[in-house]
């Protein structure tokens, strides 16, 4: 019985009842649950709409139907109005309720009036459903989700098609048998219309309109084939299908969709629609007669390419991604040309020329010009200096030679950058931005309150933000300004340490060495200006009063420190870590780099780069501390290196406190790659880092729950040395004068105080800082550290795994 009631919802004739219900029920179980409680158990505590209706008893059936018919005669417009009314819960809504209630009561008693009552109830019921907007949407969603089975699909198709059919009928035969037909149409509209809208909207999210319409028809046809024999009583469904070809009505529906969509959904859809719809609109307006899909898309691309050249912006991922592959697309040129210009050797005019040409020809011709014949394409590819792609894409090519070639090309391009940059420092476009994109929002968002990295988006960050498309698109003025600063600063660092490390420079550095002296000098000048200005910004805390100092300290969120000297030190550290971010984190970044893919270079560049990095950060921080040291010489300090070490030390320790997991420290690597200047070594590092992250991740993951034994055995060959190195690292840390060891004890002090050593943290510290203190390049696993602790009789434990 319930079932039959439900069936009525679908169609107006009782003959349909039997045939339709099962599929419907099966199709959308959620719908069932939403609708059925009222029907199945009228006394269920949850008041379903229908139950509400039943409780209200009103004589208004006929009047209501009249109302409905009146409205119906005003076509779909009216229907939409009604819908709006019901949404606002106007009195009419209540009337509907009454009608429905009456209808349902009637149904139980009489057979004759059943039809009418049911229909009206249908309309009312549906309307109530429309009234509850969110429920409707969820229903629609769940309906889609649930449509995994063929049955479900068919049901849905029928729903949409009937709706359309109803509309078309409305349009064409408004006067035809109002009593019988109209209510059914309304009900159909009411019930299925929203679903169609949703569906259309969803479709619009990513496919052209025309396409959608056609598909609907197709599906409807399929459904029909199945249905027609089963439902003979259905009024001319075949007609509906044949008459289906209405487009104006559909446009109307679309318009309604965009205006009427619920507030919750709206925003999200708008985001997408604004672009795609616009595109489509442009498409449709000038050449509305086009119907072929393929043609459509092509013309869409070219049309938009021509028309909306300047203002076109991609706001969806899909658009961005596909933009690369749409032939006539402007953005493609925009990106590739300046980039390659920047990176490639200016002497190598060929490729640049090609690209220039292609850019200058901005008409439809450039499709042909850009699509090269295969041989030419291969040739072009060979001549191309830079290979673009996400890191993962690049990583696919495991061959070391390819990698090295890429690196060489990059190096060459870099040299050329520095050459080209000097003559016209104002021509700044794009290339550098892409690594210097001010990711303030991303940046902030990816950090937790402690300032440590929130886990998870390692590789994604690299891919997305580094992707040239994004950054070029986001290019705007102040970013350019910012970028102008950053590269020079970066260059400062790199060039600055060149004189320090001429002998041990790795390949990439050698390449930098070969730069012509002029540009280098200018860069150095540039950079020194920059760096001095930067370091001048360090407040001279010595000049502050003690009260001011303590205030400053509290600004940084530290507790008050008694000692003035320590205050100053602390503040300087804070300042450095706050402002000079690309100085400090440098070290862990480079040191952690392993080179698993490049067996030939394995030992050399790694150690070199790490020493380089230490050297670098040492000099940087030393240069910073020198200032402070002059003003208040510390008796305990013996030599500068140790001081700078202490600086790194304590910074690292702070980092460790806030971000104790191994991962997080690794992510600091990503952080330091905000840097503007993708030097070859840096790129290589990035490449390597990703791999090392992968290995590291698996390593830590595996050691944590289960296999330090494995890793220790693998480490065993070098264990004797390493164990000693750990000991000396711990000693070395405690010998560095530090402030506030009471609250932040060194590892040695922790050990002496019998504090259980958390192995993960300890291993992290050793790998990031500790072993570097004693010039040890190897890394230790937590399992190895555990053995060391146990042999020393140091109480150690794993960090508790909460989720187990």
């Amino acid at each position, binding site marked *: 019985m319930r079932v039959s009631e439900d069936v009525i919802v679908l169609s107006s004739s009782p003959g349909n009842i039997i045939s339709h219900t099962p599929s419907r029920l099966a199709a959308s179980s959620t719908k069932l649950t939403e609708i059925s409680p009222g029907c199945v158990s009228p006394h269920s505590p949850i008041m379903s709409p229908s139950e509400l209706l039943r409780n209200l008893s009103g004589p208004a059936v006929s009047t209501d139907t009249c109302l409905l018919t009146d409205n119906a005669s005003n076509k779909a417009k009216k229907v939409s109005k009604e819908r709006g009314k019901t949404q606002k819960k106007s009195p009419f809504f209540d009337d509907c309720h009454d009608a429905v209630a009456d209808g349902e009561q009637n149904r139980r008693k009489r057979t004759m009036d059943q039809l009418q009552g049911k229909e009206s109830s249908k309309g009312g019921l549906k309307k109530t459903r429309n009234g509850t907007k969110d429920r409707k949407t969820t229903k629609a969603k769940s309906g889609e989700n649930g449509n995994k089975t063929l049955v479900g699909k068919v049901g849905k198709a029928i729903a949409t098609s009937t709706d359309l059919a109803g509309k078309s009928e409305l349009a064409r035969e408004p006067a035809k048998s109002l009593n019988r037909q109209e209510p059914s149409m309304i009900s159909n509209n009411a019930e299925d219309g929203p679903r169609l809208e949703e569906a259309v909207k969803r479709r619009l999210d990513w496919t052209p309109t025309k396409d959608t319409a056609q598909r609907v028809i197709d599906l409807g046809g399929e459904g029909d084939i199945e249905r027609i024999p089963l439902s003979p009583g259905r009024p001319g469904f075949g007609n509906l299908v044949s008459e289906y070809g209405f487009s104006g009505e559909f446009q109307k529906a679309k318009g309604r969709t965009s205006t009427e969509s619920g507030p919750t959904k709206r925003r999200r859809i708008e985001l997408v629609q604004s672009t795609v719809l616009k595109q489509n609109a442009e498409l449709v307006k000038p050449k509305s007669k086009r119907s072929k899909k393929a043609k459509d898309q092509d013309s869409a691309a070219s049309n938009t390419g021509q028309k909306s050249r300047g203002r076109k912006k991609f706001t969806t991922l899909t658009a961005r991604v596909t933009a690369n592959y749409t032939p006539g697309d402007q953005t493609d040129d925009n990106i590739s040309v300046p980039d390659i210009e920047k990176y490639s050797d200016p002497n190598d005019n060929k490729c640049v020329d090609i690209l220039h040409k292609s850019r200058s020809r901005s008409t439809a011709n450039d499709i042909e010009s850009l699509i090269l014949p295969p041989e030419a394409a291969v040739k072009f590819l060979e001549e191309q200096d830079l290979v673009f792609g996400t890191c993962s894409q690049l990583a696919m090519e495991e061959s070391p030679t390819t990698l090295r070639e890429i690196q060489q090309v990059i190096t060459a391009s870099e040299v050329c950058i520095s050459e080209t940059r000097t003559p016209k420092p104002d021509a700044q476009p794009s290339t550098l931005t892409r690594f210097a994109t001010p990711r303030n929002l991303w940046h902030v968002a990816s950090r937790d309150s402690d300032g440590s990295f929130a886990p998870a988006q390692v590789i994604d960050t690299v891919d997305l933000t580094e992707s040239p498309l994004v950054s070029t698109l986001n290019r705007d003025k102040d970013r350019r300004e910012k970028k102008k600063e950053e590269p020079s600063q970066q260059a400062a660092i790199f060039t600055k340490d060149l004189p320090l490390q001429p002998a041990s420079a790795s390949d990439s550095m050698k390449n930098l060495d070969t730069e012509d002296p002029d540009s280098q000098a200018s860069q150095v000048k540039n950079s020194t200006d920059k760096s001095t200005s930067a370091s001048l910004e360090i407040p001279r805390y010595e000049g502050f009063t003690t009260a001011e100092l303590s205030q400053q300290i509290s600004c940084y969120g530290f507790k008050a420190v008694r000692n003035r000297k320590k205050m100053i030190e602390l503040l300087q550290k804070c300042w450095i870590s706050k402002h000079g971010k690309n100085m400090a984190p440098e070290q862990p970044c480079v040191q952690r780099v392993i080179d698993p893919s490049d067996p030939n270079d394995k030992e050399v560049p790694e150690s070199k780069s790490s020493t380089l990095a230490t050297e670098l950060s040492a000099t940087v921080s030393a240069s910073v501390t020198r200032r402070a040291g002059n003003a208040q010489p510390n008796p305990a300090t013996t030599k500068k290196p140790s001081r700078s070490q202490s600086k790194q030390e304590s910074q690292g320790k702070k980092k460790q406190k806030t971000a104790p997991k191994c991962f997080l420290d690794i992510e600091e690597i990503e952080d330091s790659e905000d840097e503007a200047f993708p030097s070859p070594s840096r790129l290589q590092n990035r490449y390597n880092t990703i791999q090392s992250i992968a290995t590291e991740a698996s390593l830590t993951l595996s050691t944590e729950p289960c296999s330090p034994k494995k890793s220790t055995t693998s480490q065993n060959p070098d264990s004797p040395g390493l164990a000693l190195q750990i000991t000396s690292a711990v000693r070395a840390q405690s010998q560095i004068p530090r402030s506030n060891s009471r609250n932040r004890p060194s590892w040695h002090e922790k050990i002496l*105080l019998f504090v259980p050593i958390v192995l993960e943290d300890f291993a992290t510290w050793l790998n990031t800082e500790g072993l570097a203190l004693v010039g040890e390049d190897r890394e230790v696993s937590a399992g190895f550290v555990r053995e060391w602790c146990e042999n020393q009789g140091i109480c150690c*434990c794993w960090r508790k795994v909460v989720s187990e």
Partner: protein
Amino acid sequence: MTEKPIPAFYGCYLLRSSVRHASLYIGSTPNPRRRLAQHNGLSKGGAKRTARENLRPWEMVIVVHGFPSRVAALQFEWAWQKTHASRHVDPEEANAAHRKTSRANQPDTEASGVGEKDVDANADKGKKRKARPTRRSLLRTLADLHRLLRSAYFTGWPLTLRFFAPDVQQVWTSLCDREAVILPGNIQVVLEKEDGVQSSEDGAGNAAQIRRMPVDYSDMQDYVGKSAFLLDGTEEAEEGDLRCRLCKARVIPNDDLVAVCPQMDCHCITHVVCLAAEFLKTSNNPDQLVPPMQGMCPACQSTVSWTLMMKELSLRTRGRDEVQNILKRKKRMQSSPPPVVPSAVVDSDSWDETHDLVSDSSTGERSTAPLNVAAKPAEIVIEDSEWDDVDVLE
């Protein structure tokens, strides 16, 4: 990380049913007296395996204490309970030793006459596992204890072994005689004298003996008071002119980790690291980080306990509340006798739980251990621990 000070007392104990001596139980607690009462059903919260009335009362026959942290104690407890699985003991050696000891001693040590299942090397493994806890004899338990105490991990710990039953200690001494390796010197072995009151008769086990064990910081009152004064109340402290005795550098009591000599009349203040280095001068192992448990105070030349100094230091740095309690009690004590249960100890059950406490099991076992525990039949009376959550800790 908010850390707690080194606990005043944390011990692992071996519980024995005074009715059936073969029923043993290993647990750990910061307060043995309370814990024993729980086991005996005098207060709420005893372990399930000690709940059977016909085995009560239980008595603590051995208490190993001096653990510098709860983590350490639980690790030891775990290792003692599952010595066969412990990483700190070579399983081959363990089995071999057991075979030997069980053959030699089975007749005279095992009152209940339960055989050592390990003798049968072919025994089914599952059966073994099932049988092991119940069957482990006192001798074997002691042998495991001995083995643990001389393992690299636990050897360095400042542990004290306290026997409360002369017969158990007899077994122990005979075991020690037979073992090739002698225990390291820093592990004290103490035999508590038997009371006039035979406490097992009054249903409370050897509660009277246990009660005498100091489980709070009361013995450190003077020391804590002295160091507080030395670091805060003296002229030098007020002038900010405290200096490390060893490196002569200025010391800021609130910033630096400094140790104070426990001798009442000694004003020696040293950096922890400096003092450790000083202590280690006597050691001939350059690789050693942890100083010996005893050392010479650089000022008064008396022998001082490293553990005690660290305990005091940890109290000062991490246990402000405890120190206040201690000092308060000290004042109170001048007028009235001290309370029996010090408040400082009461909350030590809530020792921070943020660590995974098992250092012990090999990591492969870390995942499987809980299953084993869960699979253990409930009627086995030997192994449990202070808390029901210990299973999780494994």
